[in-house]
């Protein structure tokens, strides 16, 4: 749903930029007018040629650069679009429309973190921009930043109480942040409009959070049936299936999610984990690397990538990143285990022993927090 709104916003903003520029009676302006005509008629290749010809004469025109970016984006040439939008912003840095389009181009090319940064700037310029707000919330969802979504959307909750997209995003964030009661209030809000994929998705998430995987899988299955294009529906269905032990079908659901959105973080990560277990490390690595693109620096993904390398015997190759990882995430026990293993395999016993003592300490701390810690011998 959020993506539909975003797509509409992109088109409108490009058109607004086009209309906003008054025509000037010169040859150069005629080129620009032709470019806009081609653009509106959907003759995108000719529009590109005309915009480029115009910009050769008038490189200072941010509107033309932005339009060229919009055409390139429509053709799926997002890298080119990003370049044009960025150059347009050098000329007109306070234009929220161009920045929004740049954010969309980042979003569509899997650079969700970059998209979120641009959207934050758009909202700083236009605090009441609903499309930017919902798209930013969607970015945060993909980044796993549930608390940021809650902070972003909660102020709008009362004002847009009938907005299902908002309720869906906020409800999802609340549930994934384990604020189940508040999340259920959002579910009820959506349910007032009758059964829908969004409702089932949220119900599934509730069951997933309470570790009732079989019921979660049932709800996600219905959600996927009602709207197979609902963002993350196959990913969450896959995750629930995986937890019920149905790895084969889970793999299929993750693949379906990636058909909808090749940049879905969870689908990439989970399919990588299954492939790793299936003793298919090369394929697993591709998915982990894609997940890392969506969430750069994500410790879990970095860990999985290096654990695949260790499994392939590339221990020296894995060492630097594992050393960085334990610095970034000092309580990540599994990373310390892997680093200790690497040191031992490289015959660096003292370093291995040091890491193992960290592992033992962290494990003892975890154990001490368990409910049976006070049991006396």
């Amino acid at each position, binding site marked *: 749903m959020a993506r539909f709104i975003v797509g509409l916003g992109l088109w409108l903003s490009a058109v607004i930029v086009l209309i906003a520029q008054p025509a000037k009676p010169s040859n150069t302006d005629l080129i620009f007018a032709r470019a806009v005509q081609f653009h509106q008629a959907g003759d995108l290749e000719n529009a590109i040629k005309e915009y480029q010809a115009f910009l050769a004469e008038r490189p200072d025109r941010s509107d033309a650069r932005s339009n060229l970016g919009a055409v390139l984006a429509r053709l799926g040439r997002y890298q080119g679009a990003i370049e044009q939008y960025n150059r347009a912003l050098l000329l007109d840095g306070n234009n929220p429309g161009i920045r929004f389009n740049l954010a969309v181009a980042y979003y569509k090319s899997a650079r969700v973190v970059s998209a979120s940064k641009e959207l934050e700037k758009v909202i700083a310029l236009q605090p009441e921009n609903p499309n930017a707000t919902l798209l930013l919330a969607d970015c945060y969802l993909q980044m796993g930043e549930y608390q940021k979504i809650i902070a972003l959307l909660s102020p709008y909750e009362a004002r847009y109480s009938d907005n299902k997209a908002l309720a869906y995003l906020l409800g999802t964030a609340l549930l994934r942040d384990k604020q189940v009661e508040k999340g259920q209030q959002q579910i009820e809000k959506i349910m007032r409009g009758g059964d829908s994929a969004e409702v089932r998705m949220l119900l599934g998430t509730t069951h997933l959070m309470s570790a009732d*995987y079989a019921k979660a899988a049932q709800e996600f299955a219905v959600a996927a049936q009602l709207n197979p294009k609902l963002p993350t529906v196959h990913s969450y269905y896959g995750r629930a299936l995986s937890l019920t032990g149905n790895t084969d079908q889970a793999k299929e659901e993750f693949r379906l999610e990636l058909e909808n959105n090749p940049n879905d973080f969870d689908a990439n990560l989970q399919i990588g984990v299954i492939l790793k277990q299936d*003793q298919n490390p090369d394929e697993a690595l591709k998915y982990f690397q894609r997940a890392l693109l969506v969430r750069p620096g994500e410790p879990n993904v970095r*860990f999985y990538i290096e654990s695949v390398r260790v499994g392939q015997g590339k221990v020296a190759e894995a060492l630097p990143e594992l050393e960085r990882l334990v610095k970034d995430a000092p309580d990540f026990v599994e*990373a310390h285990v892997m680093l200790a293993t690497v040191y031992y395999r490289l015959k660096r016993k003292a370093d291995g022993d040091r890491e193992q003592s960290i592992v033992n300490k962290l494990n003892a701390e975890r154990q001490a927090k*368990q409910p*049976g810690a006070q049991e006396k*011998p």
Partner: protein
Amino acid sequence: MKLLSLVIITIISIAVSGQTRVTYEEVALQASGISWVHDNGRSDTRHLPETCGGGGLFFDYNNDGWIDIYFVNGGPSDFYLPKTPSKNALYRNNGDGTFTDVADKAGVACGQMGQFGMGAAAADFDGDGWQDLYVTNYGQNVLFRNKGDGTFADVTEQAGVGAPNWTTCATWFDYDNDGKLDLFASSFVQYSAKGSIFCGDNRMGKRYYCIPRVFKPRPSFLFHNEGNGKFTDVSKSSGIANSLGKSFGAVATDINNDGLMDLFVANDTVANFLFVNKGGGKFEEIGLPAGVAYSDSGSPRSGMGVDAADFDGDGWQDLFVANIDQELFSLYRNEKDLTFSDQPGEIAQATRLLSGWGLKFFDYDNDGDVDLFLANGHPDDMVETQVSKVKYAEPLLLFENNNGKFKNISAQSGDVFAKDFPARGMSVGDYDNDGDLDLLVINNGAAPLLLKNNGGNKNNWVGLQLVATKSNPGAVGAIITWTANSVKRQRLKTSGGSFLASHDPREILGLGPASKLDSLEIKWPSGKVDKLTNVPINSYVKIVEGEGTAKSVAGTAKK
């Protein structure tokens, strides 16, 4: 014409496969006289010990040449008072396919307060030629000395091997090569009925068995056999107690071929232990450096059953550990430098949704290499309500060793492999003395399974009864090397392995189609080497350390 050829080929292949297939047949218990049923004491409170038993084993308690059976039951404890007496059973093998329970007469029925049984391990700890029995309990363990007259005496207190609270698996081995069998006992978590923790669903009002993660770990026990009926607790001085675990299966093996027996111990929710024997009575725990402590994703798993054998014939002991569903089981190939690499191959896919307990490497078809049997079952009886693809009762699995690669042959190995069981303990032995290895599976809260091997003895074999004079009485650590049809094979006599069980102490050497044994050599733990020739095949022979001769004993199979 083509059709005719196809039919002929099909008929031939059916005939050939029909000739060579080895299957396991479920022995009808009633007809065999076995009426014992495991009492797990399952309660609404779901106390953890309820789901961990039972155990049992094959051993010859009366030295009549026929392998008997001992079963370990749940019993009275701080969380369970059986309505009817819950006892262990000792089934004397009558030699005709039937058994008689003589536990009460023999004095090994247990059933006293503090004896909620787990498993047992048999061995001749005092070297008098009679197999003794060590029973592990939630409560206090019991050592029964075999008096040689069909009865046993409880010598736990004098021996000092009570190992209180909760131990699971026990393994007899001679860690200091002094010729006496020492004892390792795996400690599981710190547990008491009073300290029971609610693990379950408050909304549904249901309790589940807790994941052992929530309970405190404990050190395991190592007892040194002083040779005078007494043992010294060397858990601390040996280094064993430095590692706090939640230990289940344990196997004594020699991972670095230094002649000192090491220990591989599975742990539930904490890292597995690999105790390498440094000599001088000291052990060093090297699980992490060796690569057998954690999963390949750096996580501890729910290790339950273990075993060790040289499955790839390279002269180095490899390891196996079974875990809970979705954690995958591990087959660790020995890299010959105190490290191991996990190469489960086909086993991984076949066991993805299973939880493994009893397991053993052994040569089911007497072709000379070790195959692998797995007995499975999920510990949570309500798992199906949570995880739809995982079942409480699970199938047994048999893998055949094809040049170091394991192939799942369960579907072709008998109807029993199509059924599901809540399996726990498992023992391997030749109860009918026909020269192939049968199986005993103990099911939690249900009747056990006695599985008869049909056809394993179509290949030729030699059964060895090793009688030590200087080495430990179990000949644990002996290296057996044999050649038949110019194929040389070697086997280390390990101890323990599987889960809550020990095994037929005899060794059956598979010869395949070879009609004679070219050579046989026993390198005893004492260092003595016996070289034997003209050993009769398809029969059991007794080999006495230092005598260099093989004398026929009871039990010659008819092929």
